[in-house]
């Protein structure tokens, strides 16, 4: 067996800005947004790959890739610093016909066909870099093989209201998909595509080339590639996933997903030693809880110094919380400094922000307040 040939490899789409996350994505791409105290969003897709024993991963970047690049580095946190395969960041580039930005999700893969071909994969796993979930892709691949599918789409049951935001598909009792609609006004079902696809590479390769030659195409998986394959009666199957999965597209949903970590009923379990979520580790000492501090129902990380009161909150790496400050139902991102006498309720404090003495910021039932320090 050649070391260069890989049965399956993954391509992670990480080029989007995520503009509904407001100031959070001015300087970083959405997949690089901090989550859960010590992670960045893309850690979930990467750790899922590592835990599913997929050791060859391409990451397609375009928008403000610097933080993402530094975070991924040589891939060691995910055991992806390999001699063969491993993780490779794939930005847009110039060739003899000029500069080629990625026009859409499908085009991003199209532009990297030669990268993929080098590994001669049987299957290719297309992922999005901005979802929070723990999923064993090896099981999905086993399903794909068992069904002798050409394409397998991971799906999740959503509510009827939510369905309008997703690609919605209908499948028969054998899980074969006969209908696919991107963001339908009147959804025919509530099975939403999670944006996770396994393709037979030979089939996708052909479809990408055809799509690229179609000047009317938006070069997008959800809008073009998948509907076309379904219409052409390719063997497209749905793989139902019932675990935790969240697309944290807005400030509110990012806050909610963080709060899920404090909810023992939630399916999002980061304490499972068999399915660790890996991240680039900072070099920091243990957290110090001072004599006058009070910490309850909260998550706290390395390098923190807590002198105030923390309740129902996520305190990220290297956060300082001053005396007489009260932090409730908030997410404090890495390196933020909360000075003395501050009161925060239902907020997200962005990375590195200094919240001055005696500041009071309170969100409410409808709104989470993003503290940007400006």
């Amino acid at each position: 067996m050649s070391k260069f040939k890989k049965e399956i490899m993954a391509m992670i789409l990480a080029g989007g800005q995520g503009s509904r996350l407001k100031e959070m994505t001015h300087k970083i791409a959405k997949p690089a947004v901090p989550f859960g105290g010590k992670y960045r969003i893309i850690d979930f897709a990467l750790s899922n790959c590592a835990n599913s024993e997929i050791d060859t991963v391409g990451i397609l970047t375009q928008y403000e890739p610097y933080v993402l690049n530094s975070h991924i580095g040589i891939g060691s946190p995910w055991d992806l610093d390999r001699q063969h395969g491993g993780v490779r960041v794939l930005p847009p580039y110039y060739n003899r016909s000029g500069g080629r930005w990625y026009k859409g999700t499908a085009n991003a893969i199209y532009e990297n066909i030669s990268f993929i071909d080098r590994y001669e994969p049987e299957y290719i796993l297309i992922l999005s870099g901005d979802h929070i979930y723990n999923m064993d892709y090896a099981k999905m691949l086993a399903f794909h093989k068992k069904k002798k599918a050409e394409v397998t789409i991971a799906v999740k049951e959503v509510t009827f209201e939510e369905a309008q935001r997703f690609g919605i598909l209908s499948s028969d009792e054998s899980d074969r998909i006969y209908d696919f609609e991107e963001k339908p006004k009147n959804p025919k079902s509530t099975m939403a595509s999670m944006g996770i696809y396994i393709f037979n590479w030979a089939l996708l390769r052909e479809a990408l080339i055809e799509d690229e030659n179609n000047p009317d195409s938006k070069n997008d998986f959800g809008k073009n590639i998948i509907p076309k394959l379904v219409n052409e009666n390719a063997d497209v199957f749905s793989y139902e996933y019932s675990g935790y999965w969240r697309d944290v597209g807005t400030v509110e949903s990012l806050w909610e997903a963080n709060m899920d970590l404090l909810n023992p009923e939630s399916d999002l379990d980061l304490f499972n030693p068999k399915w660790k979520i890996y991240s680039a580790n900072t070099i920091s000492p243990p957290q110090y809880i001072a004599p006058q501090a009070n910490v309850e129902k909260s998550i706290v990380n390395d390098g923190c110094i807590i002198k105030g009161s923390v309740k129902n909150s996520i305190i990220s790496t290297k956060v300082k919380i001053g005396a007489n400050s009260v932090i409730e139902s908030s997410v404090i991102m890495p390196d933020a400094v909360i000075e003395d006498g501050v009161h925060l309720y239902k907020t997200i404090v962005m990375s590195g922000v200094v919240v001055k003495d005696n500041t009071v910021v309170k969100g409410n039932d409808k709104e989470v307040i993003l503290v940007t320090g400006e």
Partner: protein
Amino acid sequence: MNELMGIINLSASTEKLKSLTEIRTIGSIPIGGRYRVIDFILSNMVNSGMSNIAICTQGKARSLYDHVGSGKYWDLDRKKDGLYYFHPEASSIDIVQKKGDIEIFNSMLGFIKGSKQEYVLLTRSYMVCNVDFLPMLEYHKETGADITVLYKRMNNHVRRFIDCDTVNIDENDSIISIGKNLGKKKFYNVSLEMYIMKRELLVELIEESIHLGDVDFLKQAIFKQIGELDIKGFAFEGYLACINSIQNYYKANMDMLLPEVQEELFHSDALIYTKIKDEPSTFYADDSYTSNALVSSGCIIEGVVENSVLSRGVHVKKGAIVRNSVIMQNCEIGETANINYMILDKNVDVSEKRVFNGDVEHPFVIAKNSKV
């Protein structure tokens, strides 16, 4: 600063640390929550720009290899220079204690001679501090001394550095004699057992000792040179602990609860590196209470933790109380158990309702993997 190579000599008497060193070397004793003792000297060297470092191990070195490995967490996993291990081929504590460490140094001669740095820093593993060796090297060069010894002036803590070497220094910072701290003097200069000298001089000292066969320990060879060579002292002003007894080990952990010690050791620009473990965050449950505690990642605190240092993955269950204790990795404190002035080695499982009480001067150690 690629003028200085480092040699960390781990051979040491572990008599007074026995309950912690039966399964490991001093260098690999867990300390300060997420660290091992050797992390301090290794990080100090790396932070001073040193990139060619040898570790001479002795005895049960397996846990040390597991921890330090190829040195990649210290950025020492390199093609040029990097980290090197030396271990006596037929190893057993008896042999080393009888024959001293000169034999190990002898086996390193080729390595020392082949290194390209002009100076060598010779250290032990058990001194816990955050020190920059650059000023010491500058001082060594400026004074033209043959050997420079790092020391700290003590004018209190009479009993803190018992059994450590002490140096007697004249008004020119020259070392007149080297003794041992028996815990009877209030004012003394404790030696950090960190020596800078020219690489060539070290080679000479080793070769001469082997040739004459008159000393067993390299340290003795250095002491013998007092009067012959120009040996200077260089004062270190920062925080210092020596892990040479259970009492001192316990005190060093408790010191790390002091904000000023934390600031100096952990929050300066010169970071202390350690092996990365990918633990999740620490979770504090509703109705838990934590006060004055250094807590590592991956812990679950459902009970009470006060004045204590917790390593990674410790689980303090509901109603359990941990006070004035050092709890190592993956210990579990059962419901309503009560722990006070204790040192729990790794993977200790304390059953519910059990009560263990040590004393501030005599903290008890519960051995690794015990279920009590």
